[in-house]
């Protein structure tokens, strides 16, 4: 098991290096077209061939990984902050505030997440700029993915509020922000960090799903999801197995995350 964890760390480190050095490793920019060689097979110039528009697939894969793997942690950070706020407020105040927050949490948990995401993304315009689409996509992931984490944080905050040291702190005159800053936040840090790490692979997968359905990042900006759209041309999949590489990369990267998160609580 230790060996597998080492491999997972190595894979993630290699991925991080690759996306940081994308500019040097890619033979061209992600949007540069080689019009004389569209749909080219892998060669020394184009290690993964070119797509229908003559863009280098290897370059698009590198920049796509950069987009997905940079923005997913940002979305995870956003969702963790939201979960911390809602869950923390519910656990801290209790009573009707907790009931209202829990109703909101239940609302978000009841409607299947992907259904909500597809609906919300589908009602947004498709003709937005690539930068806006990538921001909207990941902001939506962050905005809609907080509920499960909020439930965990709420339960943790509630337990803390009942603990002896918090009672003692309150008896000593601690209240409001001071109590939150000195007693709640430091003790909830572990749960918040766990939720942050758990959210990253979930968001990468969610973006990939949206991208494969054509609702992810707009062209010409690549992401792991938008690269999966090439799979839709299933007729040409058999003679061109290298089109499966983005999916393979995605599975390897997410599996590495999962191996490292194995000891964390499995989000169901």
């Amino acid at each position, binding site marked *: 098991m230790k060996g597998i964890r080492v491999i997972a760390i190595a894979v993630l480190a290699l991925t991080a290096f690759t996306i940081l050095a994308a500019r040097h490793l890619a033979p061209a920019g992600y949007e540069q077209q080689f019009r004389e060689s569209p749909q080219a097979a892998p060669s020394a110039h184009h290690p993964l061939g070119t797509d229908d528009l003559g863009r280098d697939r290897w370059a698009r894969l590198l920049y796509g990984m950069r987009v997905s793997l940079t923005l997913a942690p940002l979305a995870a950070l956003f969702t963790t902050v939201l979960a911390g706020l809602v869950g923390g407020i519910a656990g801290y105040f209790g009573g009707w505030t907790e009931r209202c927050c829990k*109703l909101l949490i*239940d609302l978000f*948990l009841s409607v299947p997440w992907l*259904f909500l995401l597809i609906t919300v993304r589908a*009602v947004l315009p498709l003709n937005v700029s690539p930068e806006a689409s990538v921001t909207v996509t990941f902001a939506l992931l962050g905005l809609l993915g907080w509920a499960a984490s909020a439930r965990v944080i709420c339960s943790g905050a509630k337990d803390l509020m009942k603990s002896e040291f918090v009672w003692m702190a309150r008896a000593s005159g601690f209240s409001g922000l001071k109590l939150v800053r000195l007693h709640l936040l430091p003790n909830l840090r572990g749960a918040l960090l766990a939720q942050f790490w758990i959210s990253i692979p979930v968001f990468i997968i969610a973006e990939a799903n949206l991208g494969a*359905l054509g609702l992810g990042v707009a062209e010409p900006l690549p992401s792991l999801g938008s690269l999966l759209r090439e*799979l839709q041309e*299933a007729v040409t999949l058999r003679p061109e197995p290298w089109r499966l590489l983005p999916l393979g990369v995605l*599975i390897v990267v997410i*599996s590495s995350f999962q191996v490292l998160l194995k000891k964390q609580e499995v989000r169901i």
Partner: protein
Amino acid sequence: MLRFCGWAALRVAAIMLLASFTGAMLMRIAPGFSSDDQELNSGLSAQSIQAIRQAHLSDANIPRFYAQYLASLVRGDLGTSRSLNQPVKDLLRERLPVTLVNLAFALAVGWLLGFSLAVAAQVWNVRILTFLGNALSGTFISTPAAALALIFLLLRWPPAFAAALLLFPKIYRYTQNLLEQSSEMPHVLTARAKGAGPWRVLAWHVAPIALPQLIALLGVSISIGIGVLLPIEVVSDVAGIGQLAWHAAQSRDLPLLVNLTMVVTFVTVCATLISDAAQRGLTRSAA
């Protein structure tokens, strides 16, 4: 019991209303809501085009649309789909069984695979079995539903099996964690030290502790199953609720989307509530 049922019904109703109202509001603010492809049809008369515009305008006021929708819902009328020009009730009658059959298949196969592999790994404690379970679950938990659906489409395998494979890792990992945690409890260790066999330990000492949480997982897996089936139905062109929801969102079909949100929310909230109640009952009887 009566009080619990009353609260549960109230909760289901509140969540359904809130979810469908939010869906309607999102649809209203979406670009292209007030336009219709049919307006470009040169074969239609000016009066027909005017009538189409009027129909869209009547939906523009969401609170009024929602009040009218609820009033007709009480009478059993779910309205008419604007894009498909068919009563929503008929559409649901056609599509819902398809999704439910696929969901039942996915749940049955996902649970069979996940649960049996987790139990086998726990009982026999063979390294290769654990490795196989972890490798398979790691692969499928890392695969986007839409991508797996595309691969299944290419291989001409049933789409419901793709949903089952995506459900399997959640069930396997959670069951494995649960069984591992339960097996480390003092009374289980004592039973093992006294010579009880692995199956006996599992049936008499581990299962009673794990059962309430497994029932909760069953409820949650229904919700996950629906979420997984939606993109699979879209990609595989399965005539179910997922494909209909996709169509409703793309064509800004407000009556259809509101009803679908209601149905999906109803199924998931009921599944969660029933499993919660069963879990609570089992925990209480065990105590």
